[in-house]
């Protein structure tokens, strides 16, 4: 996937669907969706989190595929609801995959996540 991963992550964190859409490759597909449909899906998810009162999404590491793969997913900063998108990156921080992996589990966080 030819997307600058840092921009992709940080526009999700900032819940900025417009900028997120701008860095997608229009000829590529994401989660088997065209760039336009994927952008619409991301917008829908971001709007949902805004409606829950979230002002930012926390990007946190975890595992999926029966804990065999490491990846990142997102959580609303106020609602603590999962964003439902899982992103795999390689050692060079390049995007490998984007999915809705249902069995993603966040790593244990060293601080009490409910206290902030």
């Amino acid at each position, binding site marked *: 996937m030819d997307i*600058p*991963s*840092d*921009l992709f*992550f*940080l*526009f999700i964190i*900032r819940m*900025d669907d*417009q*900028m997120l859409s*701008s*860095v*997608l*490759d*229009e*000829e590529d597909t994401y989660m088997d969706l065209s760039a336009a449909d994927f952008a619409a899906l991301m917008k829908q998810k971001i709007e949902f989190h805004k409606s829950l009162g979230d002002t*930012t999404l*926390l*990007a*946190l*590491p975890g595992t999926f595929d029966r804990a065999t793969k490491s990846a*990142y997913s997102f959580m609303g*900063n106020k609602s603590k609801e999962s964003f439902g998108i899982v992103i795999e*990156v390689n050692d060079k*921080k390049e995007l490998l995959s984007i999915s809705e992996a249902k069995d993603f589990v966040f790593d244990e966080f*060293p*601080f009490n*996540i409910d*206290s*902030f």
Partner: protein
Amino acid sequence: MECFPRILTPENKILMLKSIVIEREVLPFSHKPHDHCESGAVSNLFNFYGLQLSEPMVFGLGAGLYFAHISFIKVMDAPIVSYRYLPGSVFKHAAKTLGIEIGMESFRSKAKAQAVLDEKIKENIPVGLLTDMYYLEYMPEMFRFHFNAHNLVVYGKKSEKYYISDSILEMPVMLNEEQLMKARFSKGVFSPKGKIYWINKIPENLNLKIAIKNSIHTVCKRMSGQRFPWAGYKGMQNLAKNIAGYPIKYKEEKANALLLNIVRMQEIVGTGGSGFRTIYANFLKESAGILNSKELEVFAKRMFVISDEWRNFALLAAKSAKKKTISKEESFKNVSDALYAIADQERIFFIELNNLELN
């Protein structure tokens, strides 16, 4: 700091805090997340002493807004594009213009750097540190890259671990001595050299109105001045000229990467969006209220418009870098034209703002 509604000198506050510290083991430092690490760290430090200043107010008083494009200095293989003034300048300028006495030290010796940090913590003085983000192990791996000007506040220590308020995070974190030392003594451009800063004394009667006027004047001079061809509106024009030439000078992949790097610097690197223009517009808006100036309120609105223009520029730049359907020369020329237009807007804006009589 609701317990301490008035501004306190550090000495007085330390006395008041002593019993609390014994109970809690660390200072009751109020961590608040912010968009930009330095103005966020400084805002949290000021707030600790009862000086409640928002992040935009600290950024504005620190005369943080700027633009520089230095094509002959490269960071991560791309020429420098900066939307703010030098690292550390927000703290220094805000403190100076408010009459706050501060301390600041850099080191050659790691042992000395740690000794001074530990001493300050022992004296119950929270301190700001300059660090390289790459070594901050509390950051998820994905977000760790070499950036030597990341500010954070250390406000306690327990079992060789430091309590850290990193204002770009939602919550305070901890880091051990070795990790923090690596982050304080990284190499490269703007190497932090263990830099540490703190507040010595806050005057009881500080004059916020004068400080606001001074800071606005400083930014106006820097942005509309003629001194350096890489700075202010001239720097923008210079970058606009270069952008138009990227598809001719470089292969497509490199030209796209350079354009995306501009977006990265503008929208991502702690700017709060639109290259700090949104934060600055909020500073002007807050200042208009404090100075009771309708004219300044109009300037705040104009800065919000300029901020939107910068955002549109970032959108256009990102799309141009990704788009394959139209010629690169044409799309980069459009991006260049958009930047020339913003440069002109900012030139007029800062000249007119500088001429505004603020009472």
